[in-house]
């Protein structure tokens, strides 16, 4: 639901990922991180919810 609310507020869905990986699941970890980086790279750098003032 948190992901949905973020998406509702305009944060692209592919930017936020949830996963549960055990310490024994090294390959799953690699796969998930790869998938996430690909997806985030595809949408480009985030400008929303970034504090920029100083």
């Amino acid at each position: 639901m948190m992901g949905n609310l973020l998406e509702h507020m305009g944060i692209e869905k592919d930017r936020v990922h949830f996963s549960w990986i055990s310490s024994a699941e090294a390959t799953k970890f690699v796969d998930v991180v790869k998938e996430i980086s690909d997806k985030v790279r595809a949408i480009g750098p985030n400008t929303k919810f970034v504090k920029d003032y100083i």
Partner: protein
Amino acid sequence: MNTCINKIREIASKLLENGEVEKVIGFANGTIPMATSPVVINSKQDVDKLVFNSTCGLNLANYVRNQKGKVAVIAKGCDSRNIVTHIVENQVKRDQIHIIGVPCTGMINKKKIEALFGDDIIEFTEDGDTLNVKSSTREETLNKKEYLRDNCTLCMHRNPVVYDDLAGDLVQEQTLENPYPDVDRIEAMDADAKWQHFQELTQNCIRCYACRNACPLCYCPTCFVDESGPQWVGKGQNKTDVDTFHFLRAFHCAGRCTDCGACVEACPMDINVRDFTRKLNKDSFEMFGWEAGLDITKRPPLDVYSPGDPNAFIK
């Protein structure tokens, strides 16, 4: 609703006289038009102070915590649902509270009425569905149904869900083809338009936190925005800090919000913060078949684990 006040006073006076409760929490007339103010009554002599009308948009469930002894409280449909939430979350005990239920026909949208006039409203009266509003230059007769608050037009629980006394006859519940048209409208936008919508929504927020403080759900002894060791969020007017407050306040209400509208009612800048919570309400309903505050025996969905919980979001 005009007649129910006599009934409310009668019940309140009986309860205080018999010593069944120590105080009665209700609404009193305000000092300005279209305003009522939460009040606590300790003695039978004062029951005439109590009033009830379409300007009682705040949520009295917010006033029942930390009271000594048994209290009676006047509850519309949504107030009663927040009382249920309080009971489920151990903020009050069921036997500490005497609920005087008021079947509700909706509360008025004060800002919308104000906007009809260029100048200040100096008099407001109502008679059934007719509102008479006067400013210093003009007088209008309005149909209440057209000037309800957004949450009241979308409300499907006008009758109190728990009560010990009823101050009026139960009313017909509304049936809505689509209870979440406002959420759908935002969902249909693309990511940037959504972002823009929320940026504009909270643009004039002054971080007074009236929305939080008027909400019965926000009873944490120290809110995350007020925490100073560690400090979670900046306290200035930086937009990211403002957005962080809104996002997290709303999320803390997930599965608990009754859409009572007190948050919007209280906001001095007329910001519809329900745009945040309504999405969570819709998701709770669609993912868990859940509406907050209807069942005194069930905890909110994000509070409990059930094997049937939706899992699609996790990899």
